[in-house]
């Protein structure tokens, strides 16, 4: 009989099932070994993927390679200036930066009231009032940080800037606090620090990332300038680099350019502050990649130890079954038939327990997913194991199972039938 015929012969499987069934303890111990391995592997890599997805969910509303740059106080005297000077950012800096740092895709000058110190704006509507942070923004801002606007509304546009329109986009909470529940806020008017603004949109609040909240009010940058007399001043720039650019390099280039524009010593590390989301994101992604890698290593190691366990147990069982195998060979089993039977037993046991482990692992992942479905603060979404990982694990198991089966199989046929028969 050639080996292919053996594999597809139902009799072969009957022999294998027979011997598996008759060695229940052995079978169960073996199955648990590999099952545990693949279970750990699936659960770990699924959890790592869930974490990965969770981080991605938290960052999805902001460009991955974005950064903020703001001015602080100088710490080195330069070009006749003393230390402690505050190099105020200007609107013109935006176009200069864009020209000199070609990696910049979008740059949004921003002003804000109530964010970095200072008091928030007093907002009044009819008998209701509250204090909210107000941002002066360009429309380009939503290219960097996505803002979802509820149906019927819109974000600021270029004409709002050009005509310094008194329009605003309010937050969910602002709407709730200033408008009646059944009232459509779009087209309504609110009074921000004494000036009436028309509401043109309500933005949906997205958790995660930065200092924004569900009550923020966005007004056109030009209008903000006039309202608060900020002149050319800009509180900070929100910048998005092109995807392929290295965020750290871009950050350095931007700061160097700003130093040149504002006559700051090139080595002055204090003059401009920045926060690089791209870099932070990269670090978090690195962490989650590390987790994935770790789970891969741990999982494969556990599978390996499980498979070695199978080999061990089969080795013992071959020893136990020496006589049986001797009888089989006296009755005409060829060495290759005996070897094939042992290897198939090993492969069958590994594959079965592997599949069980995968099912069990998937079950646990589903339960974890259910439990963490609505947890906002915990970065964990949709834990899945990529199919190639599962197929790969199965392939590894079948390969290792047959390799490890070779050892007891070889041992089984290395004993001469006459010696095997003498064994008691």
């Amino acid at each position, binding site marked *: 009989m050639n080996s292919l015929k053996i594999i597809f012969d139902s009799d072969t499987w009957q022999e294998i099932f*027979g011997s598996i069934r008759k060695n229940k303890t052995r079978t169960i111990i073996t199955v648990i070994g590999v099952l545990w391995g693949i279970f750990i592997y699936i659960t770990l890599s699924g959890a790592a993927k869930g974490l990965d997805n969770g981080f991605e969910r938290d960052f999805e509303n902001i460009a991955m390679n974005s950064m903020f740059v703001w001015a602080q106080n100088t710490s080195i005297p330069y070009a006749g200036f003393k230390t402690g000077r505050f190099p105020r950012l200007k609107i013109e800096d935006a176009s200069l930066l864009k020209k000199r740092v070609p990696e910049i895709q979008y740059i949004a000058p921003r002003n804000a009231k109530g964010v970095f110190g200072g008091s928030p704006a007093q907002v009044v509507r009819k008998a209701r009032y509250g204090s909210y942070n107000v941002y002066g923004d360009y429309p380009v801002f939503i290219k960097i940080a996505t803002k979802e606007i509820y149906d019927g509304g819109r974000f600021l546009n270029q004409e709002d800037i050009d005509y310094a329109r008194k329009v605003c986009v309010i937050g969910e909470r602002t709407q709730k606090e200033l408008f009646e529940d059944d009232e459509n806020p779009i087209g309504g008017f609110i009074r921000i620090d004494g000036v009436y603004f028309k509401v043109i949109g309500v933005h949906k609040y997205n958790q995660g990332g930065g200092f924004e909240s569900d009550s923020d009010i966005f007004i056109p940058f030009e209008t903000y300038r006039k309202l608060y007399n900020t002149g050319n001043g800009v509180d900070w720039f929100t910048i998005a680099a092109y995807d392929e650019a290295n965020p750290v390099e871009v950050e350095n280039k931007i700061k160097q350019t700003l130093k040149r524009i504002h006559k700051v010593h090139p080595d002055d590390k204090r003059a401009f502050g920045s926060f690089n989301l791209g870099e932070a994101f990269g670090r978090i992604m690195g962490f989650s990649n590390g987790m994935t890698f770790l789970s891969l290593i741990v999982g494969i190691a556990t599978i390996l130890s499980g498979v070695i366990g199978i080999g061990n147990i089969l080795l013992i069982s071959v020893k136990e079954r020496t006589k*049986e195998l001797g009888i089989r060979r006296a*009755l005409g*089993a060829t060495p290759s038939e005996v070897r094939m039977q042992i290897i198939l037993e090993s492969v069958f046991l590994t594959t079965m327990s592997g599949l069980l482990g995968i099912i069990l692992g998937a079950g646990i992942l589903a339960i974890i997913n259910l439990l963490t479905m609505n947890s906002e603060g915990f970065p964990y979404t949709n834990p899945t194991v990529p199919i190639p990982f599962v197929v790969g694990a199965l392939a590894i198991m079948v390969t290792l199972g047959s390799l490890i089966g070779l050892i007891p199989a070889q041992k089984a046929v290395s004993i001469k039938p006459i010696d095997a028969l003498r064994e008691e």
Partner: protein
Amino acid sequence: MIKIKDIHKYYKMGKSSLHVLKGINFNVEKGELVAIMGSSGSGKSTLLNILGLLDEATEGEYILNNIPIENLNETKAANYRNNLLGFVFQSFNLINYKNALENVALPLYYQGLRKKKRQQIAIEYLEKVGLKDWATHLPSELSGGQKQRVAIARAIASQPKVLLADEPTGALDTKTSYEVMKLIQDLNEEGNTILVVTHEEDIANMCKRIVRLKDGVITEDKKIKQVLAKVD
């Protein structure tokens, strides 16, 4: 059926070697019932193992069913064992987790017969040894005599050219021994060639020819008048 010429067998025991068979010559014709006798250590089991292709002679010629047995590898030996030889052992050597029927069908499995055919043949032979009703019993549920009959059914199910029995009654009491011998005699009457290794005179006398071995040589080889086994 069996022709052996000048068979020698040495066992290596460390540096020295043990000369167990010292030039054995004998022939067995088809349909013979031969007893191989000798005290323990006379080499009778070694001879049977060589005849059964479970062991290899160090020197000598062996022709089984007109096939010269030489340069055997394990696969070839397994196929010859499967097709030409049937074994009956003193300790039965049934596979303990298989029932009587499955045990009898096992050599047929290695012959590559389909399951239905195997079971049909196995039932047939179980019936022949009078154990049809015990087909689904495990060896542990059978008496010694019954086990040996199952083993005999298994040995003859593949219709071997030669049946080799190594002390088939060694583990049985006199009554069951005679039952087993009766079965062996019946099989012989049907034309089967059977070799029985024994050290019991009464068992040997139930055969048609006795070959006596002592210290690795044949001391006597004679045809005898067969005593029929009496079963009450």
